[in-house]
């Protein structure tokens, strides 16, 4: 059973029309796949929609409907949420290794996504394919040798 991890910048294409939408839907709607994401994703999506609501571009009802769309995918097992237990502690080590020793620009949020994906991989004992629309992040996952064989990445160009 293929195991995926999707970050927010890719997951957004589930709820927006764009180049990656077909790929994201193909993966998420295939019941033979398991698609995981972090609790952080729920927060990041809510924050993005809240930002657009704050600017007066959408109303509160649209904000809630976007939230409901994410929750509907969770209820229907299209998206499996991984808790962030001790993720911050582990992400800090990752930042030190990737950001300082390897000198690669790893953002705070991305470090949390990676440690969560690693958590999934070690729990399911399979390689997890990390779906992202962030080219830099996709490359970091491919280039950092310690992520192999737990993680591999697919870049979904926006």
């Amino acid at each position, binding site marked *: 059973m293929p195991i995926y991890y999707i970050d*927010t*910048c890719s997951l*957004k294409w*589930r*709820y*927006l*029309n*764009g180049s990656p*939408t077909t790929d994201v*839907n193909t993966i*998420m709607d295939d019941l033979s796949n398991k698609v995981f994401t972090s*609790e952080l994703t*729920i927060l*990041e*999506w809510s*924050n*993005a*929609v809240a*930002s*657009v609501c704050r*600017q007066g*571009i*959408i109303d509160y009802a*649209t904000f809630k*409907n*976007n*939230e*409901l*769309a994410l*929750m*509907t*995918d*969770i*209820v229907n*097992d*299209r998206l499996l*949420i991984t*808790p962030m237990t001790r993720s911050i502690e582990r992400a800090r080590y990752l930042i030190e290794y990737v950001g300082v020793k390897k000198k690669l620009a790893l*953002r*705070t*949020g*991305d470090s949390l996504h990676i440690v969560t994906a690693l958590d999934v991989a070690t729990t399911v004992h399979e390689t997890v394919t990390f779906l992202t629309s*962030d080219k830099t992040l996709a490359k970091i996952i491919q280039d950092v040798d310690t992520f192999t064989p737990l993680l591999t990445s697919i870049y979904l160009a*926006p």
Partner: protein
Amino acid sequence: MNEQVLVIDDEKDAVDNIVLQLQMRDITCRGEIDPEEAIERFRANPTDVVIVDYVFPLTTGITGIDIIARLKEIKPFTQFILISGFIDKDLDEETLTEELKNKLKANRYIPKPIDLHNLVNIVREALQDIDSQSSSWKSMAGEYVSKGSVSAEQARDLNEKIKEHLVKAVDEDHEE
């Protein structure tokens, strides 16, 4: 800090007494006597459990059931305990009629006059329920969609005209 329990009753002495009893048992708690202020503060700082009286002064135009409905809109995954004189103290929850339960819309009920020992036990049960259910996002999501779900396709249609704004918002949040 997020308190575990919110008490809403227009009688300040009743609120203070319940809050004190819970705090003495290491259950973090806050009290409100104005329903509208209570609802507004809940938006910013929701609790896991809400204890609310059924009856409020007519001038407020609100009942405890109205308060429960409005708080549920904000945070569906909340345990509600209704204090109600409708419930005879000798009548336990199992013998409440389905009609009364549906009308009162709470998870649990406490008859008046309040037995504080009983109240503390009921609050502890409610907190345990939240703890056991909140370990599952699927359970919590189920509460959110209980009044209606939105498919990904519907969301895409909804967001078509604002797509660029949402893309920008996600990407900006991503930048450092």
